[in-house]
């Protein structure tokens, strides 16, 4: 292996380096200086994110087990940027008494999970795929149970680890059938034929992956885990974990499972309708904001499937663009929820009554985030949904398109409920004025800039579209 081949894996090397630096710091630093770990982690993560945008080459290493190309690098960069925002948002929570001496664990587990994400996206062999998937999930289960004196947190951890173990068992059962049909696990010469065994294997495989994206028949763990986990872990689950699973689903469906496209289109057609509708209908009746965002993220996953069902380069580009927008919008919303939760402990929508009078900037951020999630025109979320709908229309599923548009209206209703609570409803006891710290401000600024810039600056989508055409 030569030096240039090693450099193809630079995202992973950088993250492994960050993990090692964090371990060394944990050993060498005294308890009073633990705050420095937060600063170091944020700065290094920012450097890694920027370094990731270095022009990428395509290539394969380890005999084809690891594949990289500009599109995969872009996917990794999107998720790295998301993790940077989550790091910035976690400072207040980790600085609390009782949390401070365990601060490094949080960063270490999050970074190892991110390494899993990177390997998952770059997998060129199903073994790498499986290891990446487990490396992504297991640290997050430990993080969901991070608040050790709250039984809700442990409950979330249990629900996450058991459902993810169950889902990966289903996924592997499907994979073993596919292996039986083909006799090969490399992505390069994985040529499926349209036999009963492959279709059965695919259904099992897809069900396992659907757990991670929380597509509807497999979504039952989502709301509970999102509610019980610490808010930062929830945002990681809803953005990075789901985003990476979507990316890998797109890559697999568009390359390996291309030969059985009619089968997966039928599967996606049904699940997309179910996911959008059930996610939206359950989101309406939620009072807890974390549960609310959980169901909203289930509905968003349904919209993502609209782009996947297209099966061509436009569909792929719209999915990548939508996830990019979704990362920023959702992290802005979770950032505000986190800031309010850390200052007051309040999480219900009713608690946000009169929020605008006391915290105008935070409520404007929340409004932009929710409008972007709902898809209001000048914001990025509108264009995300617009491209997804274009993809569905191009593939000719007009009934599906109609259902999706109706669902957008339902979604607008419940997003506006929160906005109404913040701006119109009066409250005797509004949330007091919150002075968020510098890191939180930077993270919200980054997220809002993302929402606005991606909406107004069209070359981003053109760039993604070009990459997807050559994929």
């Amino acid at each position, binding site marked *: 292996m030569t030096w240039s081949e090693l450099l193809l894996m630079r995202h992973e090397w950088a993250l492994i380096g960050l993990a090692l630096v964090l371990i060394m710091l944990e050993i060498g630093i005294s308890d009073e200086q633990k705050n420095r770990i937060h600063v170091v982690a944020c700065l290094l993560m920012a450097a890694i994110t920027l370094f990731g945008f270095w022009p990428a080459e395509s290539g394969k290493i380890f005999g084809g087990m690891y594949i990289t190309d500009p599109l995969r690098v872009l996917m990794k960069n999107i998720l790295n940027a998301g993790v940077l925002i989550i790091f910035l948002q976690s400072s207040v929570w980790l600085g609390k008494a009782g949390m401070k001496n365990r601060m490094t664990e949080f960063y270490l587990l999050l970074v190892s999970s991110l390494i899993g994400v990177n390997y998952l996206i770059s997998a060129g062999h199903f073994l790498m795929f499986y290891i990446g998937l487990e490396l992504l999930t297991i640290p997050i289960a430990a993080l969901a149970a991070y608040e050790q004196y709250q039984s809700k947190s442990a409950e979330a951890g249990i629900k996450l680890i058991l459902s993810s173990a169950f889902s990966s068992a289903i996924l592997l059962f499907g994979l073993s059938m596919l*292996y039986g049909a083909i006799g090969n696990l490399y992505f390069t010469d994985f040529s499926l034929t349209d036999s009963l065994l492959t279709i059965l294997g695919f259904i099992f495989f897809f069900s396992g992956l659907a757990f991670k994206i929380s597509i509807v028949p497999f979504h039952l763990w989502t709301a509970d885990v999102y509610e019980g986990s610490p808010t930062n872990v929830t945002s990681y689950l809803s953005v990075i974990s789901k985003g990476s699973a979507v990316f890998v689903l797109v890559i697999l469906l568009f390359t390996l499972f291309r030969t059985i496209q009619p089968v997966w289109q039928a599967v996606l057609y049904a699940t997309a309708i179910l996911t959008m509708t059930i996610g939206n209908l359950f989101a309406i009746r939620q009072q807890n904001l974390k549960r609310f965002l959980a169901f909203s993220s289930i509905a968003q996953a349904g919209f993502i499937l609209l782009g996947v069902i297209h099966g061509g380069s436009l569909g792929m580009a719209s999915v990548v663009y939508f996830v990019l927008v979704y990362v920023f919008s959702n992290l802005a919303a979770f950032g505000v929820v986190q800031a309010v939760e850390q200052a007051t402990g309040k999480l219900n929508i009713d608690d946000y009554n009169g929020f605008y009078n006391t915290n105008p900037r935070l409520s404007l951020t929340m409004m932009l985030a929710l409008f972007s999630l709902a898809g209001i025109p000048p914001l990025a979320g509108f264009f995300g949904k617009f491209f997804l709908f274009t993809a569905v229309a191009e593939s000719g599923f007009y009934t599906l398109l109609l259902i999706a548009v109706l669902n957008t209206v339902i979604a607008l209703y419940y997003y506006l409920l929160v906005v109404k609570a913040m701006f119109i409803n009066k409250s005797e006891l509004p949330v007091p004025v919150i002075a968020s710290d510098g890191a939180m401000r930077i993270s919200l600024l980054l997220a809002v800039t993302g929402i606005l810039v991606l909406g107004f600056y069209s070359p981003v989508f053109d760039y993604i579209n070009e990459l997807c055409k050559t994929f």
Partner: protein
Amino acid sequence: MIDQVPLSHVLSVSSLMFFIGAYGFLTRKNLVTMLIGVELMLNAVNINFVAFDRYLYPSGINGHFFALFIIAIAAAEAAVAIAIFINLYRNIRSIDVEEVDKMKY
């Protein structure tokens, strides 16, 4: 000797094991037993991989390697899961899944 057992018999055993594991996972009340159900499912997958390797593709060892990695990762998963169970036990003095119901629809 093993060649006298056809592949379909091995696959029947593994499928049966998989669904017994899934049934156990879905019906048991004790969290540790639920974990055992998952292990049963993973072992069914291992049998599948090794059997396909032995009967259909005897020249390759892809399936054997996959089975080894599944065993290793299942152990890691079980370790984290049991750590979380212990944490839950310290909080609510029980590992009955019926007690884990703080959050519901």
